[in-house]
């Protein structure tokens, strides 16, 4: 297991998890979201191949209502 920070919270995940795996864990797999890992945007076509590593900072973002 490795520890990453996901949306500001520490989380233990399986070593070898991809970005796509993380989206499934948080229920975002069918949502239109943006993923940023260590300040780099991970585009949708790369999410199945980008592996997460210990201490990675991951942000999963979506649009909400706002003025």
């Amino acid at each position: 297991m490795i520890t990453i920070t996901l949306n500001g919270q520490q989380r233990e995940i399986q070593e070898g998890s991809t970005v796509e795996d993380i989206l499934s864990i948080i229920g975002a797999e069918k949502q239109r979201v943006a993923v940023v890992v260590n300040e780099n945007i991970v585009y949708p076509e790369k999410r199945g191949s980008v592996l997460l590593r210990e201490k990675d900072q991951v942000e999963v973002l979506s649009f909400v209502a706002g003025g």
Partner: protein
Amino acid sequence: MDLVQIGSYTFSSRLILGTGKFGNTASMVDAVRASGTELVTVALRRFNREETDHDLFTTLADLDGITLMPNTSGASNAKEAVRTAHISRELSGSPFIKVEIHPNPQHLMPDPIETYEACKILAGEGFLVMPYIPADPVLAKRLEDVGCASVMPLGSAIGSGQGLATAGMIRLIIRESTIPVIVDAGLRSPSEACAAMEMGCTAVLVNSAIAVAQNPPEMAAAFAEAVQAGYRAKAAGIMPKSGSAIATSPLTSFLDTTS
């Protein structure tokens, strides 16, 4: 047909809608439809499954003819705003960005310095930059000079409903500007949107006045009519003011009542 050009986009509506503060998503969608708007704002936040049972992007994408304008709310400086803009563009596919940097939650006044810095960067990267700004004619001109697609001076504080408190300054901005001037924030009622258009604004952005109304879709429709009325009035040439009365009926040739 009355069309507004911003960048390579053409709009037939001069009413831009904010999607925040509605009681629920259905009410917001009804208001968007009733308003006839073609440009709506959204905010970017951390995904939270518990807080969202729907995908707002998909909800809005399902409405015909809507372009998204993500805002940079939450950013407290230029760096954060630029980061938000990059992520928003990737997520929305839209080149529009409402640069909104207001670090103090008490008054939500936009930071002019961080706004300018962010706009300079984003305009250089090809965004259609729509900055939310204090009604400052000097700042507005500086933002035009660095390539903003419009300037969006506030009428009064966000959500305050204090109307066109900055009317005098907005008039100055309009006089000096060659890009669209869009009043954003503080409008409370359709008559104020009409007044903004009569002044010469290209469009208005309304959120609270519709979202917090007792009947948001009805209010949205009323705003749409008011914006059109103001635009038509300005185009029709509003009569000048006079310091003294100028009769509308002849003052001579009365009926002679003496015999």
